[in-house]
């Protein structure tokens, strides 16, 4: 179906385009026959859920990875970048979600890194700083307002200014025609977003083609001219933003009626499993909370509101500033080992860096939290095989390295560990971040099943439809303060968003 998206006139108008792109990673087909086309002088949004293939497509355009099949063209000519440097020479630059800059260097050093100006063999600092100042001013006439000084250390800048430095660097490095921005606003404050948008509009007037990836659909509505929607590695929609609606985008992105995604059975809330009394974490407080067995309680809020800090404090990974955490009747000191003994388990939001040991096998990861003094590899393998079958984890065998699995399967391994531990209270931090729709549906089913069997689930998510689909009650966190948990039936997404953002 995607072949029909790009037709004759579109092909002529396009500056950068892709046809029939295929890319596989292990068992996942990240891209299957993707068609893409963006024009000069437009901001082209690429939409899609996590795992839809957005990042893979962008990495291919920017020469970071090579496609297995398909062709690219740039300015009417075939375009086959072998590495990011080749892409840059051709005029395609990418700025990643977390800008890749050196904190210990100054702004101007960062901007001329790899292309330093010298005079008589020595660094010509003044020329570099002038160059940086000019580049920043070109990008944003009121760069002074953001107080970026070229001689300043990058470490002194916040995420907003850093993003601008990264963009300025990308633009300065060559005759840039295509600028790819990957989630540029995800860690920015609102005022910084406005600065960024102003800069992007200027660049668009200069005839640049800006490819803009974002999860924030409202922002895309404001800034983009056209859009492409990806789902499961294929392009399923292309059009003018002016003609589109949020509902239409969401339908295209999810590809099915959202209601099917969330199975719901009867939950019977029972005794109190976890109680937080006037708890303050490093991110603020207070966070009062009562979690009962047999219920799924969601915590909504913006990134950085302190939700992760709260879960970590409950699990004993970080300390509590003030207040008391009671698990059942126990209110003593906490450490992950103590909590696991009490039947509390946690799923980390960061699978790669914390949730799993990527170089260890699936088997080792599943059994790690609960080992007897002596370990019998064969028995452990049998046990792992059982969980692999139970959770339908796609893998070669239990000895395969976890790092080789797709995101969804990795998350299922992490969940298998909690299930094997048979915990009563599950702390789930962004349990479906970055995983495919099929795995998500499965995880929602698991959560529902756990609650119906009397387990208590405390779940942090930044994805509202998910919270509304899965939870019995939702509480909103804003700047470390946790609001009252209310039944889902009494809430609507707008009021939750309002509560999450009201103090920011």
């Amino acid at each position, binding site marked *: 179906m995607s072949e029909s998206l790009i037709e004759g006139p579109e092909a002529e108008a396009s500056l950068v385009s892709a046809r029939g792109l295929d890319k*596989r*990673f*292990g068992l996942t087909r990240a891209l299957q026959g993707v068609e893409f086309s963006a024009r000069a002088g437009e901001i082209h949004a690429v939409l899609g859920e996590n795992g839809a293939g957005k990042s893979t497509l962008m990495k291919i355009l920017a020469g970071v990875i090579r496609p297995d099949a398909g062709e690219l063209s740039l300015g009417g000519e075939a375009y086959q970048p072998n590495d990011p440097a080749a892409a840059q020479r051709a005029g395609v630059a990418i700025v990643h979600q977390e800008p890749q800059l050196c904190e210990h260097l100054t702004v101007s050093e960062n901007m001329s890194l790899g292309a330093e100006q010298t005079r008589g063999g020595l660094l010509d600092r003044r020329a570099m700083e002038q160059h940086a100042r000019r580049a920043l001013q070109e990008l944003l006439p009121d760069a002074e307002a953001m107080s970026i000084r070229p001689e300043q250390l990058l470490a002194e800048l916040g995420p907003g200014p850093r993003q601008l430095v990264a963009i300025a660097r990308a633009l300065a490095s060559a005759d840039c025609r295509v600028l790819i921005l990957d989630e540029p606003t995800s860690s920015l404050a609102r005022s910084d977003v406005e600065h960024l948008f102003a800069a992007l509009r200027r660049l668009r007037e200069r005839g640049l083609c800006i490819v803009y990836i974002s999860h924030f659909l409202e922002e895309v509505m404001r800034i983009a001219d056209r859009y492409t929607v990806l789902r499961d590695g294929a392009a399923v929609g292309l059009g003018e933003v002016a003609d589109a609606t949020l509902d239409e985008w969401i339908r295209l992105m999810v590809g099915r009626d959202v209601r099917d995604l969330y199975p719901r059975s009867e939950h019977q809330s029972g005794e109190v499993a976890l109680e937080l009394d006037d708890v303050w974490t490093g991110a603020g407080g207070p966070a009062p909370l009562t979690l009962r067995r047999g219920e799924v309680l969601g915590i909504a809020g913006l990134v950085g509101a302190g939700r992760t800090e709260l879960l970590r404090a409950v*699990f004993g*990974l970080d300390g509590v500033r003030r207040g008391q955490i009671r698990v059942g009747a126990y209110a003593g000191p906490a*450490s*992950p*080992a103590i*909590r*696991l*003994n009490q039947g509390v388990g*946690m799923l*980390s939001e960061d699978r790669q*860096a*914390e*949730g*799993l*040991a*990527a*170089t*260890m096998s699936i088997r*080792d*990861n599943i*059994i*790690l*939290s609960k*080992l*007897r*003094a*002596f*370990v*019998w*590899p064969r028995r452990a393998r049998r046990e792992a095989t059982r969980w692999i079958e139970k959770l339908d984890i796609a893998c070669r065998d239990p000895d*395969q*390295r976890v790092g*080789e699995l797709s995101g969804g399967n990795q998350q299922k391994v992490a969940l298998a*560990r909690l299930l094997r531990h048979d915990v009563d209270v599950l702390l789930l931090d962004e349990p479906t971040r970055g995983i495919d729709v099929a795995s998500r549906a499965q995880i929602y089913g698991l959560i529902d099943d756990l609650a119906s069997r009397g387990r208590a689930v405390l779940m942090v998510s930044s994805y509202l439809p998910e919270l509304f689909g899965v939870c019995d009650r939702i509480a909103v966190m804003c700047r470390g303060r946790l609001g009252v948990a209310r039944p889902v039936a009494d809430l609507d997404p707008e009021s939750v968003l309002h509560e999450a953002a009201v103090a920011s």
Partner: protein
Amino acid sequence: MRAFIERLLSRPWFGPLGALLAVYLLFAGLRPDTFAHAGNLEMMARQTVVVAICAVGMTLIMIKGGIDLSVGSVVALTTVVVARGLQAGLSPWTAAALGVAAAASCGALNGILVAGLRITPFIVTLGTMSIMRGVAKGLAGEQKIDANAAGLDEWMAILPPEYGFLVVSPGVWLALGLSALAAGALVYTRYGRHIVAIGSNERAARLCGVPVARVTVMTYALAGVLAGMAGVMEFGTLTVGDPTDSLGLELEVIAAVVIGGGSLSGGQGSIAGSLLGALLMTVIKTGCTHVGVPNWVQEILTGVIIVVAVALDRWRQQPRQSSSAH
């Protein structure tokens, strides 16, 4: 058959084993009469004992993601403590136990500093390397201490004929036994899996309730015990307590682990590989001496082998990683 070969190739000790065989056959071919002699084999085994025992401890530490630069100083300190003990009239077993205890405390100190102060192990053990060396010199009054070896030398001596059934010296058996214990512990015990988990991803280990600090202290202490036993064997060889002994031993030990597939970033390595690495270095040294290659060439050769071994290991692991990405 192909699966079998692939399995063999994927074993971490396969590379060092191949290298060891190749180097051995090379020298055996060059000097069939002297180098390939059984007595020479036995001697090389004895000469590897100290490095091998230290390498067992170092392997545990490096799999956990740490490093121990103080091991040479600890071995020297142990020889001094043993000699002082014997001088004071202790029985050889008591003196040896005292030496091992001293080394174990050094290891525990390393572990407490690493886990407690959260300073990188490289810096901590760089410090304790100097501290332990100083302590050894102070304890020895800056000179070698002569003592009656009282039988401790027999651990490392050529076997007398009546003990011929042992085939190799007790010291070699000690090294092999400790290695087998450690290799088994890595695979079959909770402690061993915890070490690997911490080295693979410390944050994930913490999330799983692994007592990271306790395992850290225990691992350094255990490495201390092993360094102590190596120190007793070193005393058996020297039959004096020498505070300036084993200078640079730590680098040799780290080299053995690295040749054996260990990684400075943790999570990787095997006891068998480290043993083979230690043996490989002895074979090169001895072989070069037999062939008459001067010492400076030996040193260059050893360095080249270290770099080549690690580069080969990288290369060997690469196709596996990319094949899994398709």
